[in-house]
């Protein structure tokens, strides 16, 4: 086998058993790796009726074939399973340093079931895999635990750690690599917590080489791609000013949500929160994922004021908006501190931001009262209360407020009722990221709704396609899209779902891979993994992953009716560039279903469509 190692670690924490297993080779060719391969593994071994936080639930970490190659953007991996936040299939992607180390140690992935009798950590050192007591680390923040693990084992040991929020089963708890890079979405930190698994630590002492199908051709391709990615305009801008580099531009197009998506324009906020302001005021140096020449990560220090923090990981665009404009604040220092606190407690900044913003609106409307909030007043822009009181309460599930908000916005809205679900901004239970599709692009509304994960901007590259950052004539994507219309959006979504499934299964960074053309993608898979694909076959693999994930959600009880958007996003914006423009959502969805051969009731691909993708076995289980 090329590219992949062909081996996974299978752990049953209840029994303390550890086995090494091989996966059928055609799984890799058909489902690529990462998100797709994890789904196929679960389809084979998982049980769709098990609660995501029950000991029997399955948690899967999976690399892609490109992990460990010295290529900008390729060092990501996926975590997948049934999401405790949404109740259906979910996955999340993470950059950093874990994926290459796991590959060098000789593994493509880790499949975990069971519950350790006592807090434990998994230690992987080449062929030695062990479960180690983690009692000393339990209850502690991620920063302290990561530091402690580095001290105990060595700085070259790569870490995945959960925080107190994961231990207390907060539904949007994260898993953090090296204290900086997050498996952020869908709450897999809570799944780890439910298994009493505080951390996974890996070190490849012998650093196995990745065997490649055509090492010479790959080396030549790598020499072309690395400088091309690094020198691209978007890369230089993001290197300089991070993922929030164009926040200011986003405010002017109406993409940046304000006060729980009630407004699409706030001019003074634009400059206050944009990436160049973060660079000027707080950046100390740049950070990067393994082998990445873009280095878009921020390391920041806020020297004084109520939000002072020492040098350490800085906020990404999503955190800046979630703890900035979404909560009615334009205090950049507050976003730095909020991001740091979320990292240490172990909560997803997008879901935490969305849930707290929802609570602020509920408090303003009187749907939440001081009786519900343990006396805490929730007001737009009051970031000291958010950071010092609300976040710790959520992570500890402390009091009524902590318990309520730890469940996420959709669940909290159902609990308090009073029509508050109308302004819980989510897709399939996952809080919407910080791109409002009314300004960001109507196609994004469609892909938020049809994503297996729930509303997600990186499940598929629709956001980039609508802004004009993609051009793939080889697969028929030559549309010149206008973001705020529905023209060509279903057709674009058909391409986007395959591309996004390829990206998330190959575990490639969606910022770096914008520079990779379709012929180069094909070449990557062929030189690394020897798939001998052409563009059609590669796109078919992407579609296969998309189809499989739809089938999985169907088995969790989801149908066409669940491919919807929160009502707030379907109301015309009240200000800014998208003011008064309605999203033609139903027509886009109907057309997309038709183009993708999805059953209008069940929401799954027809038997014939599945057969065409070589999914006869999967089809037989649902039709």
């Amino acid at each position, binding site marked *: 086998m090329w590219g992949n190692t062909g081996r996974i670690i299978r752990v049953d924490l209840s029994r303390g058993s550890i086995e090494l297993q091989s996966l059928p080779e055609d799984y890799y060719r058909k489902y690529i790796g990462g998100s797709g391969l994890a789904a196929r593994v679960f389809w084979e071994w998982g049980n769709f009726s098990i609660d995501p936080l029950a000991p029997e639930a399955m948690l899967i970490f999976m690399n892609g074939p490109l992990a460990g190659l010295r290529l900008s953007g390729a060092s990501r991996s996926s975590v997948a399973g049934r999401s405790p936040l949404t109740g259906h299939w979910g996955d999340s992607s993470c950059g950093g340093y874990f994926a290459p180390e796991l590959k060098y140690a000789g593994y493509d992935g880790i499949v975990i079931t069971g519950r350790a009798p006592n807090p434990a950590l998994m230690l992987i050192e080449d062929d030695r895999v062990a479960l180690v007591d983690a009692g000393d680390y339990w209850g502690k923040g991620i920063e302290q635990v990561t530091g402690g693990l580095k001290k105990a084992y060595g700085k070259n040991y790569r870490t995945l750690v959960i925080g107190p929020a994961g231990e207390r089963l907060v539904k949007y708890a994260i898993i953090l690599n090296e204290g900086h890079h997050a498996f952020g979405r869908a709450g897999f930190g809570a799944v780890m917590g439910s298994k009493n698994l505080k951390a996974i630590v890996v070190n490849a002492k012998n650093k196995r080489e990745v065997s490649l199908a055509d090492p010479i051709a790959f080396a030549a391709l790598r020499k072309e791609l690395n400088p091309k990615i690094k020198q691209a*305009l978007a890369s*230089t*801008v993001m290197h*300089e*000013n991070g993922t929030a*580099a*164009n926040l*200011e*531009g986003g*405010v*002017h197009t109406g993409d940046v949500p304000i006060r729980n998506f009630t407004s699409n324009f706030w001019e003074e906020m*634009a400059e206050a929160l944009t990436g*160049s302001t973060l660079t000027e005021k707080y950046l100390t140096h740049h950070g990067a994922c393994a082998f990445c020449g873009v280095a878009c990560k921020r390391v920041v220090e806020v020297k004084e004021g109520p939000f002072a923090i020492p040098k350490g990981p800085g906020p990404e665009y999503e955190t800046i908006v979630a703890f900035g404009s979404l909560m009615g604040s334009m205090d950049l220092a507050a976003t730095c501190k909020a991001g740091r606190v979320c990292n240490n407690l172990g909560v997803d900044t997008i879901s935490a931001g969305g849930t707290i913003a929802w609570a602020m609106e509920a408090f303003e409307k009187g749907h939440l009262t001081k009786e519900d909030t343990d006396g805490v007043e929730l007001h737009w822009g009051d970031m000291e209360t958010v950071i010092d009181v609300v976040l710790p309460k959520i992570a500890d599930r402390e009091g009524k407020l902590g318990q309520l908000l730890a469940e996420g916005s959709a669940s909290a809205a159902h609990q308090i009722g009073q029509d508050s679900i109308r302004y819980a901004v989510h897709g399939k239970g996952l809080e919407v990221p910080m791109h409002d599709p009314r300004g960001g692009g109507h196609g994004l509304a469609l892909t938020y709704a049809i994503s297996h994960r729930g509303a997600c901007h990186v499940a598929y590259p629709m956001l980039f396609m609508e*802004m*004009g*950052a*993609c*051009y793939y004539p080889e697969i028929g994507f030559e549309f*010149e899209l206008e973001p705020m219309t529905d023209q060509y959006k279903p057709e674009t979504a058909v391409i986007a779902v395959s591309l996004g499934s390829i990206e998330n299964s190959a575990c490639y960074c969606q910022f770096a891979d914008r520079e990779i053309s379709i012929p180069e993608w094909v070449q990557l898979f062929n030189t690394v993994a020897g798939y001998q694909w052409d563009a059609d076959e590669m796109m078919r693999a992407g579609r296969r992953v998309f189809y499989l994930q739809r089938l999985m959600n169907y088995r969790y009880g989801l149908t066409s009716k669940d491919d919807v958007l929160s009502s707030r996003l379907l109301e015309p914006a009240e200000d800014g560039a998208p003011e008064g423009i309605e999203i033609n959502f139903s027509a886009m969805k109907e057309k997309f279903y038709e183009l993708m051969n999805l059953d209008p009731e069940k929401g799954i691909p027809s038997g014939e469509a599945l057969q065409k993708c070589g999914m006869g076995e999967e089809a037989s289980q649902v039709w």
Partner: protein
Amino acid sequence: MEYWKDESEPIKAFVELFQRALHDEELAQGMKKVNQLIWFDYTEDGPNCSFHVDSRGGQTKIGAGKPEEQPDLVMSLSADDAHRSWSNKLNPVMAITRRKIRVKGSATGLLKLATKLKKIAVVYEGVLKDLGWEDKIMK
């Protein structure tokens, strides 16, 4: 060229556009924030078809041709696409992706100006009118 008779026409219009923009407080502030020496290079349409804007050090200077100093940023495109761009009829991200615009150097400053394109287009329309080139105005 679709919109221009010769290479002098676009430079006349674009230099005038930037001169006028300096009299608009919002645009003048926006240019100050760019704080770079930018060369707008349209030489694919003629050797003298270019101009530069120097907003370093708090003062903005505009001149025809290539700057004497090394620019911080070079934007290369056709004079027709530049006309579309200043008319706010060209998606800059799409144009860059499709290599209609080639950029060398840091475009961070330019992102600040991009948010003002709508207003720039209004000034540009006025410039075209005053130069007697109403036929070039894009609707």
